[in-house]
């Protein structure tokens, strides 16, 4: 099981209602339904991925994330997941606010642009970094936002989003020492400051 999936499975209370924005092929969602007895919905832009979701028995809307969020009444879900999909969204503020409107909590997983290897590549080769968590070439990346774990924390502070938990991740284990330098990905458990 992927480390981020394992941690998300650990974060979510059994029986929760989950909205998974950018659910990919539905692996995580199917896992949650099986292990955590969750119910809910995936949202995915790729038609091929939609077929994979349906194959796994995952209910999925073929849509981008912004439209996928629209229309839900407040607090329809216990968790809204944005695992490795937030960086593909333009309006980060809107999506996070909407996520915390329709969900009690949000779980966000992002690649860390300030990972040491990315810094080194940029510094020494002078080229846009390609790393395991940022695997794309600059010319074909679906990512439109590039942030570090620190950037994300600052953003949340400025937008009145409370970070309940920060879980910096390496490939096989969690990172506790200088995470903004040594973590490839970060998982955040968020809730609205007003809730």
């Amino acid at each position, binding site marked *: 099981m992927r480390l981020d999936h394992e941690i998300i499975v650990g974060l979510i209370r059994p029986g929760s209602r989950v909205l998974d924005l950018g659910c990919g092929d539905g692996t995580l969602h199917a896992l949650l339904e099986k292990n955590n007895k969750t*119910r*809910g*919905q995936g949202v995915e832009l790729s*038609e091929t991925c*939609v*077929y994979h*979701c*349906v*194959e796994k*028995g995952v*209910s*999925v*809307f*073929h*849509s981008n994330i912004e*439209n996928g969020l*629209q*229309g*839900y*009444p407040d607090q*329809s879900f216990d968790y809204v997941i944005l695992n490795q999909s937030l960086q593909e969204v333009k309006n980060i503020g809107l999506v996070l606010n909407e996520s915390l409107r329709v969900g009690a909590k949000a779980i966000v997983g992002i690649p860390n642009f300030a990972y040491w290897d990315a810094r080194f590549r940029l510094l020494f080769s002078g080229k846009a970094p390609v790393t395991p968590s940022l695997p794309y070439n600059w010319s074909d990346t679906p990512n439109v936002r590039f942030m570090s774990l620190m950037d994300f924390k600052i953003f949340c502070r400025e937008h009145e989003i409370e970070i309940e938990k920060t879980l910096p991740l390496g490939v096989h284990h969690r990172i506790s020492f200088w995470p903004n330098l040594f973590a490839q990905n970060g998982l955040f458990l968020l809730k609205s400051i007003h809730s």
Partner: protein
Amino acid sequence: MDNFQNSVGLVEVQSLTFAEPPDTLALASGKSLGPITIAYETYGTLNRDRSNAILMTHAFSGDAHAAAYHNESDKHPGWWDSMIGPGKAFDTDQYFVICTNVLGGCAGSTGPSSINPETGKPYALDFPMVTIVDMVECQRHVVDHLGIDKLLCVTGGSMGGMQTLQWVASYPDRIHAAIPIATALKHSPQQIALDEVGRQAVMADAEWDRGNYYGKGLPRKGLALARMIGHITYMSDKSMEDKFSRNLKDKDLSFSFIEDFEVEGYLRYRGDSFVKRFDANSYLYITKAMDYFDLSGDLLFPHGGTVDIRFLVIAFGSDWLYPAYQSREIVHLLKTRGVEATYCEIKSTYGHDAFLLEIEEETHLIKHFLDKTVQLVQKGK
């Protein structure tokens, strides 16, 4: 029998008559109708606990013959044979599939061409206006007659999708799942306009004679013209380019008004063959039923709250007759009620016809969706 491979094989049209005197069926219009005969076909076997039934609802010009063949020399199977049969999306080894001809139709069910028992003549325009609600009411009679309490699934494309949605509104407790395809919660002004042009084409034909053409003539030209317009709306700019381009029927231009282009020939052929199988008054009544259909706002869930129905909503990229945004409106409504659903917009160049042609994609979605539905239903027991 070779061509029956991968098919249900031979099938017979059956029929159910109800609302016989002194009973009648109360219609949505406030009028009543009876007796009513509904033609239907079934494929596969109903299981012991009657839990594997799927109702197929047909599109505007469809009929009860959704799959299989009527006789040994039959060249063409039913209209959705590629989806219904052993091992197919609606696997007849597993499911019991029912398809009825709609009320107001002309393929075995009571419609304007049927004999009015009061006069002994065809109803013609004395036939009361029928709606999608009434069509579903008739299907419910057939489902009751077959002893089925709860359908595993209701599905259909285009007008079939409307009937599917109407089942959700009328009988939410009698279906486990709904698969509305390339359809809408209501007709847009554009859709009503296209229907009206078709109706006017029929009614402008002198042979139509205010609907009283039975036993005399046939509004051939009007009905064929209506169908030609219809076929344009079923295709896309791209699919017409791929199918016909500007190809000529003969080597040179004729410099006359005979059909020069293949597309002209195709439309004329489609128009002419439609006249042979479809009743002009049915055309008027059924298009009107579609135009009246409206389950927007709170109407899809008239009892309020939510429903325990799984949804698979399918739309097609190039469909401009029932554009994907109309399917997304269904999805939006489901979201507001917290109803679990899957929505897929299949990339296709076929336009509205795609729902009859994009078999591989639809099969993939529907097969797995039904598998999961069966799983959940069994778990819920």
